[in-house]
C-alpha cells in the first residue's frame, strides 16, 4: 500500500506523526521536553542526592541501610557509567584493566532500594526545594549535594574560555573521570622524547597525593618504554606532601634520570599554544603535558548558590556536613570544606557514612544529629612502582571534639617504605569500597 503524505493529511493524522516520517530533524525539535514531575510524591521524607560519585553512591546506600522504609532516596547522576578516579593512576601505569574502575548504578539502586535517575541536574530551587533535570523536576525534603569538583581554568585564562577549552582539549587534566583519562593514557603511551610536564594543582585540591602518584606511574611507563625524556613535576608547594619521603625516594631510586621535581613553582601563566608555563620557579617549555588547573566545588554547588566565593568550596557544619547556608541541604564529598579533611574518595565515603548519613538519619528520626555522628578515618595508598608493583600509604585517624563540635586529627600513620604488600593492599582497599558502594 502506498500512502502519500496528502492521504495522511486527509485522513487527519496528527501533525507530529507527519513530521516524524517526513523529517527527523523537525520531529526532534517537536519532541516534548521533560519538564514534568519525576516520581510520585513520597509519603515518607524524600532525600534527593545529586551526583552519583563516591559520596553520592555511599549516601544513597547507607541512608537506606540506616532508615529503610522510613526514607525515600533518589540518586540523580548524569553519567551513564561510574568510573573511579582512585586506581586510575594505577591504570594509567598499565597495572590494572579499565574494568577495575567501572561500575554500574543499577545494581545497588535495586539491591538497596533507592531510585536511580540518569539525568543532568540543570537547576536547584532551594526556596521551593526542587531539583530540575533533563528528565523533569523533583521536590525534596532534604538535598544532598555531591557534585565533586570543577576545574578553575579562570585562574589561568581569565574570561578567555576558548583558550581554556583549547588547553583542556590539548592537555586534559584527568582529575574528573572519563574521556580525559583515556586521552592522557594515549599521550603517555605515545610519548617518545623530550619534556613532559605535570602541574600539581594548588591546595586544597582533589586527592593530595594523586599528582605525585600519577608522576610515578608516568615515569614507570617512560622507563618501561625506554624513553629518552624528562618528566618535570611543577609543584606550587615547597615540598611533596603527603608521603613526601616515599615519593621522593621512589623518584630518586626508581626514576632518577627521568623525574625532575621542582618545588615552589606557582603557575603565573600558561600558554597551551606555544607550550610554555611561567612559574615562580622559572619558565618551562614542554613537548607534552598533564596540565592541572586549580579545583573548586562542582558546578552544581555554584548553581545552588552554596559556595563560599572566597574559598571556592561549600561551608558546612564540620560534624554533620549540613550547609551553613541552608539547613535542608547537606554537602558530601569534595565540594564540602572541612578543616583537616582531605578531598579523597576514602574520606568522601567515610564522612558520608559516619557523619552526614548518621546526622541526617537522626534529624529524620527527630533525634539529636551531633550525638549520632562518629569520627571518620582516611586511608590513602599510592602506587609508586610498576615493576614490581609497590605502594606507600598514609592513614589518618580523627576524633570528635564534642565541645567544639568539630573533628580533629588524632593520629597520622604513614609508611613511606614502598612494598609489594602495600601494593596488594591498594587493590584490596579499592575492591572493598566498590563492594560496599555497588553491592
Amino acid at each position, binding site marked *: 500500500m502506498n500512502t502519500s503524505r496528502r492521504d495522511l493529511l486527509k485522513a487527519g493524522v496528527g501533525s507530529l506523526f507527519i513530521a516524524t516520517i517526513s523529517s527527523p530533524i523537525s520531529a526532534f525539535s517537536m519532541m516534548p521536553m521533560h519538564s514534568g514531575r519525576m516520581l510520585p510524591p513520597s509519603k515518607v521524607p524524600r532525600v534527593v542526592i545529586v551526583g552519583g560519585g563516591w559520596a553520592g553512591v555511599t549516601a544513597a546506600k547507607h541512608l537506606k541501610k540506616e532508615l529503610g522504609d522510613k526514607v525515600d532516596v533518589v540518586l540523580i547522576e548524569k553519567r551513564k557509567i561510574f568510573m573511579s578516579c582512585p586506581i586510575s593512576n594505577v591504570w594509567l601505569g598499565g597495572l590494572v584493566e579499565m574494568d577495575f574502575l567501572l561500575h554500574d548504578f543499577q545494581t545497588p539502586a535495586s539491591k538497596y532500594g533507592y531510585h536511580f535517575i540518569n539525568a543532568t541536574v540543570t537547576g536547584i530551587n532551594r526556596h521551593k526545594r526542587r531539583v530540575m533535570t533533563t528528565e523533569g523536576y523533583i521536590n525534596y525534603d532534604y538535598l544532598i549535594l555531591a557534585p565533586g569538583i570543577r576545574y578553575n581554568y579562570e585562574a589561568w585564562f581569565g574570561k578567555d574560555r576558548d583558550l581554556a577549552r583549547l588547553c583542556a582539549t590539548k592537555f586534559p587534566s584527568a582529575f574528573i573521570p572519563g574521556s580525559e583519562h583515556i586521552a592522557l593514557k594515549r599521550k603517555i603511551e605515545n610519548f617518545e622524547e623530550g619534556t613532559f610536564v605535570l602541574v600539581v594543582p594548588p591546595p586544597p585540591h582533589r586527592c593530595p597525593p594523586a599528582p605525585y602518584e600519577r608522576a610515578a606511574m608516568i615515569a614507570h611507563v617512560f622507563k618501561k618504554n625506554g624513553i629518552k625524556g624528562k618528566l618535570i613535576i611543577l609543584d606550587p608547594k615547597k615540598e611533596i606532601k603527603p608521603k613526601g619521603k616515599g615519593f621522593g625516594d621512589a623518584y630518586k631510586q626508581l626514576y632518577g634520570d627521568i623525574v625532575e621535581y621542582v618545588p615552589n613553582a606557582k603557575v603565573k601563566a600558561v600558554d597551551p599554544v606555544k607550550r610554555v608555563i611561567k612559574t615562580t620557579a622559572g619558565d618551562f617549555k614542554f613537548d607534552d603535558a598533564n596540565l592541572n588547573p586549580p579545583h573548586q566545588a562542582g558546578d552544581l554547588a555554584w548553581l545552588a548558590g552554596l559556595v563560599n566565593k572566597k574559598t571556592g568550596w561549600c561551608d558546612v557544619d564540620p560534624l554533620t556536613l549540613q550547609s551553613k547556608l541552608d539547613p535542608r541541604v547537606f554537602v558530601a564529598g569534595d565540594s564540602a570544606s572541612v578543616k583537616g579533611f582531605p578531598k579523597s574518595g576514602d574520606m568522601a565515603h567515610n564522612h558520608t557514612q559516619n557523619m552526614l548519613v548518621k546526622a541526617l538519619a537522626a534529624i529524620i528520626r527527630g533525634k539529636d544529629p551531633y550525638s549520632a555522628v562518629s569520627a571518620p578515618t582516611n*586511608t590513602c595508598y599510592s602506587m609508586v612502582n610498576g615493576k614490581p608493583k609497590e605502594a606507600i600509604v598514609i*592513614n589518618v585517624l580523627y576524633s570528635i571534639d564534642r565541645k567544639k563540635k568539630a573533628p580533629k586529627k588524632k593520629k597520622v*600513620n604513614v609508611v613511606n617504605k614502598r612494598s609489594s604488600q*602495600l601494593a596488594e593492599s591498594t587493590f584490596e582497599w579499592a575492591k572493598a569500597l566498590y563492594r560496599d558502594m555497588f553491592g
Partner: protein
Amino acid sequence: MGLSRRDLIRVCAIGGTLGLTKNVGIPFPVQGSPLRKFPRVPLMFANGKPVKPQSLKVEVPYVFFYPYRSTPCFLIKLRERVGPVSLRLESGDIYKWQGGIGKEKTVVAFVAICTHQLSYPRRDKSFLSYYPKEKKSPLTGKDEVIQCCAHMSAFDPKSGAKPVEGPAKDPLPAVILHEDTNGIYAEGVLGKDIFGEFFDLYRRELRREFGSSKKAKELVSQATVVELSDFTGNIIKC
C-alpha cells in the same frame, strides 16, 4: 567502647533473667541476641588429632572454618590469661564474651572477617593477621592485635577483639569455644551478625571457590585447624 554503669546494670539484669547455662563459659546474650548457636564441632589438626590448648603455639594465628565451610576464623593462644569482657556493638547491643579457655584461659577464637569491609583470609593471600608482642605493625605501631591491611582496622583479642584503631566500629565476632578432656569445640558465634552480608557481597568469589552459594553455606561438622602461614603463602602485613 566504655560501658556506663547503667549499661552494665542492664547487661547484668538481662543476663540474670536468662540465667547462665551449665556449659562453662557460655555467655549470656542481651538485646537483639548477638549469640547464635551452631552445631558443636570438634577442632582437629590436619593429622586428625584433636586440638588441645597445650598443643597450640603461643601467639601463632591458626585458621579454621566455622560455622560454615566458607567462613574463616582465627584461633590464637595468647600469652596471658584473658578474662570475660563486656562489648558493645555499633547498634548499641551489648554482650559479654567468655574470655580465654583452657586451663590458663589463653585460647581465643574470632571470626576472621573484618567487620569494617569484610576482608578475610583467602588461600592466595590474607590481609588479616595477628601481630605478636614486640612485632609491631609498622603502620599503626601496635602489637598483640589482629589487624586488617585493607583499611587499617586493628582489633584487640585480649578484649574480645574490640576495635582499637581504624574504621571498624564492631568487634570481630567471637567463636564460642568449649573445652573438655577430648579437646576444643566450637559451638556458636557471638557478636555482630556479618555472615549474611558476607555471603551476599562475596557471592561471586564463593561460587568460584565452592561451586555455588548453597555449597558455601553448608555448615561444617568438623573444623580443621591450620597455621595461617600454612593456609596461605602470602600474609600481607602493614
